[in-house]
């Protein structure tokens, strides 16, 4: 594991190439040196002394950071959640076993585990835990807490739903080897980068065994359960503000630098969030609209940044409805979308990236310069449309389709896109769609129930690693496989990708999978999300430029105020 890099400056920007380079370094950091008998991560050698510091040389202590983010969770159980409303507000109160470095958003660094060993057969991950760490209620942190936490994540009791559970499907046993030593046994080896990314996911915060037992392993309605994190709960006004104060006993001295954290609840992209920031009521705003970002970047004393998010926006095609079971029809529709135009349509609402079926900014994806040569991704859509018409004719639908039910998830981008896609399908393939806009709570009912022909919305993954989302999005039983798509060759390939330990061969398998997805699309990719934050320049220590998604770096422990 690599030691944290200390070479990033506040003004530095990151492009796709830089991100890939850094992510590759991070992934490489997650790779383990091969030693005889047992192998050990490089950062593991840093021993218990490893402690995080701010990137800047002379951080100041004190002050209250006023942070605006969606922070009115529907419940309080971080493990059971999938929304920023939980991790955005509660993240600062908890620690992980290992984590992504908040200074670059990518390198995996020690957290409550200061060292780890991996068995030579790749089936045992042993973590050495810090001693002397205390929960906010004064209780000691031990390996039993880690076991209780991960046991619930991996084998949740009835009625408990934990979205990150599949990441640990290979874990067969968790063994406590001592008060501060724990081992995860795997049924079969998994790529180490994947396993480390899973452990470091921001969602997998460590909670106390006693807390879980006292609440029957369900924390949905348990506010303020103790963590070991840099901030501790002070008060919460529902839907308004969550106040936290510095944990004076935090193990990672001198963190945190802030005395208090006030987390205000604002909907993402909302004008209220932008107004609160520009009106000086907030110091830092997460997920601002494009207009606010632009204004912040123009205004002296303010700045902003755009970063990658773990979400794809797509149109699902119900393969159980005729004629959408025919791959030619789906590929034709895939080719009929002018993606450059679609990204342009919503650019005032939110920034998006061109991409196919693999995170376009990841090392796994086809490079952009190759991608834009490919049908369906070219600047000039004419060749793709010609091919699309040929495919429709070959499938017997040269005259197009009528009365196609197109479900649209309520939301600015999706509504704009639905109209544009409706026009593109009509013009290119004479497919006539009927738009049906529904609220989010009805959207999933409709899509999961298969009550649609086409359906536009977005899905999220936890990891950038294809083993996570290839199963969830494209797997036969994948929870987000709304199209009910199934390709036996692809399923076999995914099983191989999950088990392949050689990174180069694994990457080649992913490319093979991408080829299958292009020819037999499980959905029609529209664009890949990016998000923007804006803040006053006196807020230091936060580096949103380099992060993948907003869920892994949400603790504010290295943030400080230069005023």
């Amino acid at each position: 594991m690599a030691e944290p890099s200390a070479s990033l400056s506040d003004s530095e920007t990151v492009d796709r190439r830089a991100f890939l380079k850094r992510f590759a370094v991070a992934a490489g950091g997650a790779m383990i040196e091969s030693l005889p008998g047992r192998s050990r991560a490089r950062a593991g050698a840093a021993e218990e002394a490893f402690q995080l510091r701010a990137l800047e040389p002379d951080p100041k202590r004190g002050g209250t950071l006023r942070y605006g983010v969606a922070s009115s969770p529907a419940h309080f159980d971080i493990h059971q959640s999938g929304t920023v409303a939980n991790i955005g507000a509660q993240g600062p109160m908890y620690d992980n076993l290992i984590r992504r470095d908040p200074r670059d958003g990518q390198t995996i660094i020690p957290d409550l585990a200061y060292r780890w060993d991996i068995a030579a057969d790749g089936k045992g991950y042993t973590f050495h835990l810090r001693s002397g760490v205390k929960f906010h209620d004064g209780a000691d942190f031990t390996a039993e807490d880690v076991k209780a936490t991960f046991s619930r994540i991996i084998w949740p009791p009835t009625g408990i739903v934990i979205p990150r559970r599949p990441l640990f499907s290979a874990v067969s046993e968790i063994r406590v080897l001592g008060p501060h030593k724990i081992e995860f046994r795997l049924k079969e080896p998994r790529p180490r980068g994947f396993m480390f990314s899973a452990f470091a996911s921001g969602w997998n915060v460590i909670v106390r065994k006693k807390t879980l037992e006292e609440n029957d392993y369900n924390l949905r309605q348990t506010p303020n359960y103790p963590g070991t994190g840099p901030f501790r709960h002070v008060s919460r006004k529902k839907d308004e503000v969550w106040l936290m104060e510095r944990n004076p006993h935090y193990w990672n001295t001198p963190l945190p630098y802030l005395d208090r954290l006030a987390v205000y609840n604002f909907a993402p992209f909302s004008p209220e969030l932008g107004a609160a920031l520009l009106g000086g009521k907030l110091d830092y705003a997460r997920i601002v609209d494009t207009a606010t970002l632009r204004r912040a970047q123009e205004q002296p004393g303010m700045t902003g940044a755009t970063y990658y998010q773990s979400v794809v926006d797509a149109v699902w095609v119900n393969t159980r409805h005729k004629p959408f079971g025919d791959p030619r029809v789906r590929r034709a529709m895939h080719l009929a979308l002018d993606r450059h135009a679609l990204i342009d349509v919503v650019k005032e609402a939110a920034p998006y990236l061109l991409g196919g079926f693999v995170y376009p900014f990841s090392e796994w994806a086809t490079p952009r310069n190759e991608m834009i040569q490919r049908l369906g991704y070219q600047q000039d859509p004419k060749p793709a449309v010609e091919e699309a018409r040929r495919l429709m004719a070959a499938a017997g639908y040269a005259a197009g389709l009528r009365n196609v039910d197109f479900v649209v998830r309520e939301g600015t981008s999706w509504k704009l896109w639905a109209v544009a896609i409706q026009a593109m399908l009509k013009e290119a393939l004479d497919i006539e769609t009927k738009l049906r806009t529904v609220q989010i709570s009805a959207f999933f009912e409709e899509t999961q129930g298969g009550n649609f022909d086409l359906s536009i919305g977005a899905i999220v993954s936890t990891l950038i690693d294809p083993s996570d989302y290839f199963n969830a999005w494209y797997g036969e039983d994948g929870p987000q496989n709304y199209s009910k798509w199934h390709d036996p060759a692809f399923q076999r390939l995914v099983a191989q990708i999950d088990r392949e330990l050689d990174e180069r061969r694994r990457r080649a398998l992913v490319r093979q999978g991408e080829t299958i997805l292009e020819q037999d699309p499980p959905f029609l990719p529209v664009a890949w999300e990016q998000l923007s934050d804006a803040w006053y320049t006196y807020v230091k220590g936060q580096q949103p430029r380099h992060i993948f998604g907003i869920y892994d770096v949400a603790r504010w422990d290295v943030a400080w105020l230069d005023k």
Partner: protein
Amino acid sequence: MLKYLLRRLIFGLPTLVGISIVIFVVMRVLPGDPLVAMFGAEGFQRLNPGDRARIMSDLGLSDPLPVQYVHWMKDIASGSFGRSFFRGDRVSELVLHRGPLSAEIGLLSVLISWLVGLPVGITGAVRPNSLADNVVRSVSVLFLAIPGFWLGMLIVLASLFWFHYKAPLVVVQLWEDPWTNFQLAIGPATVLGLGQGAYIARMTRSCLLEVIGEDYVRTARAKGVAERLVVVRHALPNALLPVITVSGILMGFVLGGSVAVEQAFGVPGLGTALVTAIVERDIVVVQNLVLLYGVIFMLVNVLVDLSYALLDPRIHHE
């Protein structure tokens, strides 16, 4: 008077029962699943049918509809109004925390509507078809036409970009910090008040014009009473009855309008809570707030009826 009051309240009960049944049924018939908000999109998609059924049962949504309705009525009778599906917050606590701010906005908006509407209406009636009358009539039509939430957004943007001002972000009660509280309430109250003021102005003008032509007004003028006193003492009290009635009806618009206007100003009142609850499909919160709005609307109309007796001695409530 007391008998009349009791009778009105008893007659109002079937209305409230009707409202409760309508909102109860509507919230259960409309498509949408509260578990989406509860687990987020990713978690919801991983719920198996067994888990889903169990959680719906825990929430009390698996019982037959009449049983659910009886449970709700029991919650109301106990004064707790039940608990939110999410986080388990009591609805009564939500109402107690946010209700005062929304009530302030409503009352302040009525006050503003009268402060603006009455002088404008009187001016128009005293000098009909004059320049001043035409100007104020045009302005009142403008405020009738402008949607409150849009005007609210304009005010928020104007104060932000011209004065770098944004109202406070959290609820501060009047007794905690009157100035901060005033900053929260004044924006939505002004927008709602101006909208109502336009109605008040038009109603005042037309009623006053009618009354000014009456014999007793001519008699007062013939006796040499000053014109100002003729209008204020003799004509206006008689012209006000319909205006008060309109004000009572407008209260309903204030309650409805406050939902959008609170959102536009980002004021965390009951209106904002209602919008959040609708988006989250938090049935318990929605049905209780809608019923609460129904109760308020009914009480306001009873008060309006009672005020008639104070303004017109000929009216007795027996």
